[in-house]
């Protein structure tokens, strides 16, 4: 195939390091261009380059740096970590890979229990979220199109208001002299206020409350696509409503359940604000541990190791989520 000669990148003009980048970028040729692209390769590549370079610089490279620092030693300086390699002489590089931070994570009880606790909190919150969201999503999907939009608006509206303030609102409700205790005592169900603040319960409530729309929306968009004549067919064939729900609606909604659960579970594991405001100080979640290591102890290498360990833990769910997302968008086409 006849190809237009690639214009020479203006290396001399920009020179040095930037020139190298230019080279790298304009030389990697996609294996197959449509003609539309082939004739506008410069413009097209520029369009690709802008978001690509941004994400490489501010999303991917930061992770590499975190990864790198997680192997270095803490030091009283600014920045407070030792470089990984040092030129000891002109020819020799001294590389010091320090696995101590990771070893520390494994041996110190604080970290392991914080990880396990975070996973537990995230899992339980996700489950509650699902239990509350499913009937809601189902109810919306089965209502008339006009009211459907109204319901959706009501679900999304809190999301547009500040997340921080919504969590804060629960403090006023859950406190010992808060609204819930006042109401319960007024009705006479309880005599003593129940301690709800700084308990796991408060954290569950906070997470479920904040992440509920993220569970409802994927579930709704799945349930909305269901053909409800399937249920009529099942009823016609003699299945009871419960049975046809379990055998038809539930299996068909699995993709929505998976997407919603991941959207709640993954960020919940690293949640920082909710446990800080509502949770107890005895048992910390991993997000809090990370920020304490960083801000209070100024131990950047250990904080980095905590982050990398958290990423590894979440790698599988993140990848499942990405596959789901890619399929969703392909389906939209």
């Amino acid at each position, binding site marked *: 195939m006849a190809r237009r000669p690639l214009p020479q990148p203006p290396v001399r003009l920009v020179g040095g390091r930037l020139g190298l980048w230019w080279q790298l970028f304009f030389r990697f040729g*996609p*294996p*197959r261009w*449509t003609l*539309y*692209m082939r004739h*506008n390769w410069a*413009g*097209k590549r520029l*369009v690709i380059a802008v*978001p*690509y370079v*941004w*994400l490489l610089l501010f*999303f991917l*490279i930061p992770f590499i*740096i975190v990864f790198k620092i997680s192997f270095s030693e803490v030091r009283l300086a600014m*920045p407070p970590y030792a470089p990984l390699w040092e030129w000891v002489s002109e020819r020799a590089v001294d590389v010091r890979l320090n696995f101590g931070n990771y070893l520390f994570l494994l041996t110190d009880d604080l970290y392991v229990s914080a990880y396990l606790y975070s996973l537990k909190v995230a899992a339980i919150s996700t489950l509650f979220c699902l239990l509350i*969201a499913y*009937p*809601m999503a*189902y*109810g*919306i999907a089965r*209502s008339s199109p006009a009211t459907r939009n*109204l319901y959706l*608006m009501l679900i999304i*509206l*809190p999301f*547009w*208001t*500040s997340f*921080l303030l*919504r969590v*804060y*609102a629960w*403090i*006023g*409700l859950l*406190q010992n002299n808060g*609204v819930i205790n006042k109401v319960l005592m007024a009705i006479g169900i309880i005599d003593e206020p129940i301690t709800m603040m700084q308990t796991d319960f408060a954290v569950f409530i906070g997470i479920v409350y904040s992440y*509920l729309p993220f569970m409802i929306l994927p579930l709704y968009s799945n349930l909305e696509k269901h053909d409800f004549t399937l249920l009529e067919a099942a*009823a016609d064939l003699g299945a009871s*409503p419960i049975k046809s729900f379990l055998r038809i609606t539930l299996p068909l909604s699995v993709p929505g359940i998976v997407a919603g659960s991941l959207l709640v579970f993954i960020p919940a*594991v*690293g949640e*920082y*604000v909710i446990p800080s*405001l509502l949770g107890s100080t005895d048992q910390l979640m991993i*997000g809090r541990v*990370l920020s304490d290591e960083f801000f209070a102890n100024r131990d950047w290498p250990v904080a980095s190791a905590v*982050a990398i360990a*958290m990423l590894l833990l*979440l790698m599988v*769910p*993140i990848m499942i989520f*990405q596959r789901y*997302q890619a399929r969703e*968008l392909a389906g*939209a086409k």
Partner: protein
Amino acid sequence: MRLKGRHWFSKTGLWLGLAFLYVPIISMIVFSFNNSRLVTVWDAANSPTLKWYGELFANDQIMGAAWLSIRIAAMTATGAVILGTLAGLVLVRFGPFRGRALLSGMTTAPLVMPEVITGLSLLLLFVALQQLIGWPQSRDVTTITIAHITFSMAYVTIVVQSRLAGFDNSLEEAALDLGAKPGKVFFRITLPLIVPAILSGWLLAFTLSWDDVVVSQFVAGPGSTTLPMVIFSKVRLGVSPDVNALATIMVLIVATGVVVSAIWMRRQERRRAREMQMAVAANK
């Protein structure tokens, strides 16, 4: 019909769920008019009062932080819309190219990335950059904005992507076929079609930035305290009534905006439906 049975169950669940979503917000609004400093004790004698609203507007720290947050959010939303639109366009319309999978991964990962990790990694990047090239000299509005753009552009990308995927790319091909060059095709055809997605992406990015506390805490410097950071440090010490007043104002603004846009969209939809009906009827 037999299927009605389960319907009331899900309807009840829906209403209970909505109550769960709105009770805290409503209680927050109610107590913002309470005279007592103890947020949960209703001072019936002197309430309702606008006292806390007055204090809120007199609080220079909060007002300054709010102004800073608005500026950051507006810049973030604009930057995120530009980058996110480009990324969405590239992913949907540019066909396969080397490195596409990485780009698509980098645009979806921030959607679920725990905020502490994003914040930590960006701060370490800024520190490393400062050592390497001397920029950024200090952590301020610029670093916060860069960080916010990075995590919010993912949302814009998703919104733009799904809008673009809903349009046949034969529209753009038709424009090319009629003699418009690719740049012109983008501005005359693609852009007008995705304007709704860009608008909602802008609002989404604005909200995400306006709301963020964790990432900001990492990348903010001493002189740049955003509104959520102020609120966070205030409410960590317990409830405070002027925060209630602030929350009420924000809820009101958002609710008005959402309701107005919903009504407008509904009108548009109705008009469109009517026109389509007329077109069909005219043909019979």
